[in-house]
């Protein structure tokens, strides 16, 4: 019950923050509403038992990206009220297109039976294999009488909900403790994420070097005839 209440509170906060980002014209207020929306999305991640992802969302988005955006606002502000208003016609057209797109998306989401669709996925054991040794030991104690391995795995799954840090870390190292590789369909669907992790690491390094190169302090070059632009 409390989970439903929290879901509705944070869902309304996330959607309302996103709508307010669109509706306001002042860039600093847009940044504030963006913080509200992103923080609520992080709370939704916690409600979805994705604890590491919620923490990463708070740290990287709310703590990093939004601060970067606010610095961008400060470095490019040309006046105290730095609002570049949208013309009303553009706003009306954009709103109409947005409502149509939202209608299409919501109607298509509502018309799909998601339980049937997820049942059609390749049968992968939803219960994670016992990675956490303490939980495994606890499961052994609890089910020492019944001895049913399936019940043991289910118990570990319920106990392990939300503890995704170790599994994600092992997944980025190329190991998948939550999947049994022999039970896959042979298409490599249960592989780890070692190569994408390395690629994204190098990508991040290249991007940061490039951003520092692009934004470096340099003397402004004013070509002739372009001063009337400002």
């Amino acid at each position: 019950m409390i989970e439903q209440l929290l879901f509705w509170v944070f869902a309304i906060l996330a959607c309302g923050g996103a709508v307010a980002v669109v509706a306001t014209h002042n860039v600093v207020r847009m940044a504030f509403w963006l913080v509200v929306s992103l923080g609520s999305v992080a709370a939704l991640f916690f409600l979805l038992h994705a604890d590491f992802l919620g923490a990463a969302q708070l740290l990287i988005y709310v703590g990093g990206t939004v601060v970067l955006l606010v610095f961008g606002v400060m470095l490019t502000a040309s006046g105290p009220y730095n609002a570049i208003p949208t013309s009303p016609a553009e706003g009306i057209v954009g709103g109409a297109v947005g409502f149509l797109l939202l209608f299409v998306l919501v109607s298509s989401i509502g018309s799909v039976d998601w339980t049937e669709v997820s049942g059609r996925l390749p049968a992968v054991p939803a219960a994670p294999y016992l990675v956490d040794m303490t939980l495994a030991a606890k499961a052994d104690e609890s089910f020492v009488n019944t001895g049913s391995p399936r019940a043991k795995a289910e118990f570990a799954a319920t106990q392990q909900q939300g503890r995704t840090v170790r599994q994600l870390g092992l997944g980025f190292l190329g190991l998948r403790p939550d999947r049994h590789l022999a039970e896959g369909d042979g298409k490599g669907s249960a592989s780890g994420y070692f190569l994408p992790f390395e690629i994204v690491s190098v990508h991040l390094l290249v991007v940061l070097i490039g951003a520092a190169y692009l934004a470096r302090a340099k003397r402004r070059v004013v070509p002739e005839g372009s001063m009337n632009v400002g």
Partner: protein
Amino acid sequence: MGDIGLSQYLMVGAVLFVCGVVCMATKRNVIGVLMGVELVLNGSNVNFVAFSRYTPLGLDGQATALFVIVLAAAEAAVALAIALNFYNNHLTIDVDRGNELHG
């Protein structure tokens, strides 16, 4: 207040996505366009995590969402550097002014 299922989270993701698209299309400030991109990526992240919770996809959705977060941070850094360069050259941040290549 019904049960919270997959479709409720997908609705939240859809609202975030549409708001981001409208923000990208209508804002004339470069920073506003960037905020629209962030909203779109967040809507996709909500979908990824919801699918990883309510379907047997397991941890794949969360791993993909982490990659999306990292790429969004990288994109914000590069786009802000470009915006600063644009401001240095044009003394404005209005995207409608960046029409020098207009034919």
